[in-house]
């Protein structure tokens, strides 16, 4: 009988030892599950806080908040139009300079660079992304802006003064070097590492058989890039560009340093302006009451614009990773 009870007790022992481990297993599983859920909560929280924080302004001005150019802190009248235009125009200038540069860099790194040279150059390009935004701002303000004013703005304004269209868009009334175009140029260098490294990875993934067969029928490197690599990488390049656009739209410190922080809208990209992010950074600490809500409402607009851009970017980039 004693032997039987002993045998009965044998399965009980591991069961006892198992209980604390089972508990840990459950706790660990739940902890990781809720940490993962927290990522969703974060995004929802950011969205909600922007909408709620900006709500008084949306209620007060309605759609005219988007289209009005007024920014009157004394009479509490706010409109986002100049900041929206500034954000979009700096981002578009950044793309039109940054995209060709990034594509050239990606092609150089994957097709042209000698093998020993590839790694250090790749690292250098990626380090451009590690330099803090505020350092770009200081470089922009203290090094680039004076050069830009002396060698581009002043001579160019002298040449084009009075010309139709060009004389308006590129004419600088006060050639200080600060302005929308300057901000766009600085932004271009800030988004290069992001676009270039994604496109580089995409080009590296393309099976080399495709390249070799194109070379085999006598194509030059340019023709291989133009007719084989680019069509293969296809939409993922657009995805990478959208990702760069997302960066450019929300970039704050560098832009705040060089954009000039003017509240009015100018027809010339040489004139000072402001972007959504630069205006928030500039005015936030002195803002009270409705002005604070107006700044958060600007943040809300920025959130939804970048959200849409980044969603499209991620979908396009992810689609091609599968091949």
């Amino acid at each position: 009988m004693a032997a039987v009870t002993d045998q009965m007790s044998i399965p009980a022992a591991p069961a006892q030892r198992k209980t604390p481990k089972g508990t840990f297993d459950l706790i660990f599983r739940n902890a990781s599950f809720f940490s993962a859920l927290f990522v969703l909560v974060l995004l929802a929280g950011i969205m909600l806080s922007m909408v709620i924080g900006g709500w008084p302004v949306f209620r007060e001005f309605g759609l005219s908040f988007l289209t009005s150019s007024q920014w009157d802190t004394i009479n509490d009248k706010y409109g986002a139009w100049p900041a929206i235009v500034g954000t979009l125009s700096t981002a578009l200038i950044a793309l039109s300079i940054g995209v060709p540069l990034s594509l050239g860099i990606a092609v150089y790194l994957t097709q042209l660079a000698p093998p020993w040279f590839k790694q250090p150059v790749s690292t250098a390009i990626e380090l451009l992304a590690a330099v803090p935004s505020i350092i770009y701002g200081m470089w922009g303000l203290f090094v680039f802006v004076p050069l830009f004013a002396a060698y581009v703005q002043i001579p160019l304004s002298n040449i084009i003064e009075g010309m139709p269209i060009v004389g308006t868009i590129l004419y600088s009334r006060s050639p200080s070097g600060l302005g929308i175009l300057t901000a766009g140029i600085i932004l271009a260098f800030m988004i290069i590492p992001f676009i270039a490294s994604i496109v580089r990875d995409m080009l590296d993934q393309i099976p080399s058989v495709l390249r070799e067969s194109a070379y085999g029928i006598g194509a030059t490197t340019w023709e291989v890039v133009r007719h084989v690599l680019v069509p293969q990488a296809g939409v993922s390049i657009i995805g990478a560009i959208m990702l760069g656009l997302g960066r450019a739209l929300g970039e704050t410190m560098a832009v705040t340093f060089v954009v000039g922080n003017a509240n009015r809208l100018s027809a010339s990209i040489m004139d000072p302006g402001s972007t959504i992010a630069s205006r928030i950074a500039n005015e936030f600490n002195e803002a009270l009451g409705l002005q604070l809500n107006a700044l958060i409402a600007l943040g809300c607009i920025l959130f939804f614009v970048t959200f849409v851009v980044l969603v499209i970017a991620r979908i396009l980039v992810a689609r091609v990773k599968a091949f």
Partner: protein
Amino acid sequence: MSLTTPSTVRQLEPAVWGRVRQSRRAADRVMKVTAAGFTFLAIFVLFWILGMLVVKGLGGLSVATFTQITPGPGSTGGGLANAMLGSLVLTFLGIVVATPIGVLAGTYLAEYGKGSKLADLIRFINDILLSAPSILIGLFVYVIMVQPLGGYSGWAGGVALGIIAIPVIVRTTEDMLRLVPGPLREAGSALGAPTSIVITSITWRAAKAGMVTGILLALARIAGETAPLIFTALNNNFWFSPTLQGGVSNLPVTIYQFASAPYENWQQLAWAGSLIITMSILLLSIIARRIVRGAK
């Protein structure tokens, strides 16, 4: 005989044949030169920025930079001691907030949530947060912490930096765990270890170097962040209180405020601070990259 030039080509006028080939060659050469030129332009800008920092920053560096606190308006001398310590505290807080959440979330995505729709959604949203403008995260923390708690604090700054770091850590943790071969996990399970033990003592251990890299990359990412701190930790020119209430002085916002100030000692300190912060971040990123390359 069969190795001679095909008759169709032989029939072409030599001049035409040469011109076609030359135009293709020219296009090719133009592209090669342009691509190389663009690459060197980007590298040139990197070294231009670094050179500027060294030239202007070294002049402002002295022992006092590390021992004295930031000077008030109009006073002479001064250093960055309080800003540097404040930055260390805020960055450390950020990493402390982000590491457990980021590592656990990355673990869920790589180990538990394989193939589930929810995990796909979380991964997607995490990628979006990864590139979300940091100024929005600053505003978010302002609305949920600074406004309700009635004032700027180092805690809010730490949380803001932590929120920026989380997606970086989630992403690298997941990527690194996916590199661990499945048979290792199966061997652990075959010994009777529950999933949690397999993950903590086998998978994590195998991916340790990569996971540390993720945390280093997150550190490099948040160490230079300025925009979110303007709304949360703010900045001031004295030692912050140990409770971190009120503003906490920090390097990035100090640089922002000092750089365009009319006082010469402020500008010098801004350059010295920029040199210190950029070099630390570049060093961190290079170390992190080395570890990744070793792990792969």
